[in-house]
């Protein structure tokens, strides 16, 4: 839903990094996006294509690694990974009390520059 603002934040960070270090081109950027981050990878790719024109990243491709949602069940201490899209509960005991241990990532990992 808000992928354009995410894409703008991303472009700002990578451009600044290039300016500081004197690189002139970004060829690719690697991201990790969690499934519970509220960001849809396809929409982010689309938004990035639109905003990268006229920037140092105009030739850059975006590679997104999606991170599944994982949780630690407070009831049976099971570590689990969510396969379905939405409903979150512990697959072992069906408990709904858990802490999310992964899946909220919106991280830039690295980039290929020249």
């Amino acid at each position: 839903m808000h992928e354009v603002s995410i894409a703008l934040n991303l472009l700002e960070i990578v451009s600044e990094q290039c300016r500081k270090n004197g690189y002139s081109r970004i060829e690719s950027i690697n991201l990790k996006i969690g499934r519970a981050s509220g960001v849809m990878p396809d929409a982010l790719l689309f938004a990035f294509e639109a905003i990268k024109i006229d920037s140092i990243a105009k030739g850059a491709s975006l590679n997104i690694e999606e991170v599944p949602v994982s949780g630690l069940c407070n009831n049976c201490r099971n570590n689990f990974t969510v396969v379905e899209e939405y409903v979150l509960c512990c697959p072992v005991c069906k408990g709904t009390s858990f802490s999310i241990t992964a899946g909220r990532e919106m991280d830039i990992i690295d980039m290929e520059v020249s």
Partner: protein
Amino acid sequence: MKVKVVTKILEANDRIALENRKLFDAADVFVINLMSAPGAGKTSLLEKTLSAKSGLKIGVIEGDIAGSDDAERIEKFSVPVVQINTGGACHLDANMINEVISDLPLNALDIVFIENVGNLVCPAEFKVGEDMKVMLLSIAEGHDKPLKYPLMFQESSALILNKIDLAPYLDVDINKIKKDALSLNPGLKIFDVSCKTGEGISEWIEWLKGRHGR
């Protein structure tokens, strides 16, 4: 050449949120980020809160995709209010708040409510500099919501179960909402409220006074 970046994409937002928080803290203002799906009753709750004669000095920041209807509803109570139009964005971010902070007389206020854009997903991701998040769920939205939108329930300090006056007309399991919400977030404070009848408003106000006093 490969270079490591290792930065959160929302790092800039989080930084500005922290700046906002410092401004609010310096004026000793308690800030509440109010979130819900569209139409759950955020503005109605603010109207009830403002008419409750709580003694609290309240200011409001209204976030909407477009229009100023909500700010006009608040203006009737003669309290400081600022309208932000996000121009299509589905949430408020820290920078939008930063730009309007100086429009509020912070030193004259106890509490600032930020009414976020109606949306159950992304407002929870964007810190704006609040002391706490409060979410509203109208019971008409159904009892599956806590497990469908766990993040919002986990991030909030209080849950206003609104439109409780509609309970006789709905097949909704209110106890399931509470049970699931509490297992997602055992510390969650839950209020049964009707902004139509006024039920639950005094409990909410008392709690608010207690939180602000801390």
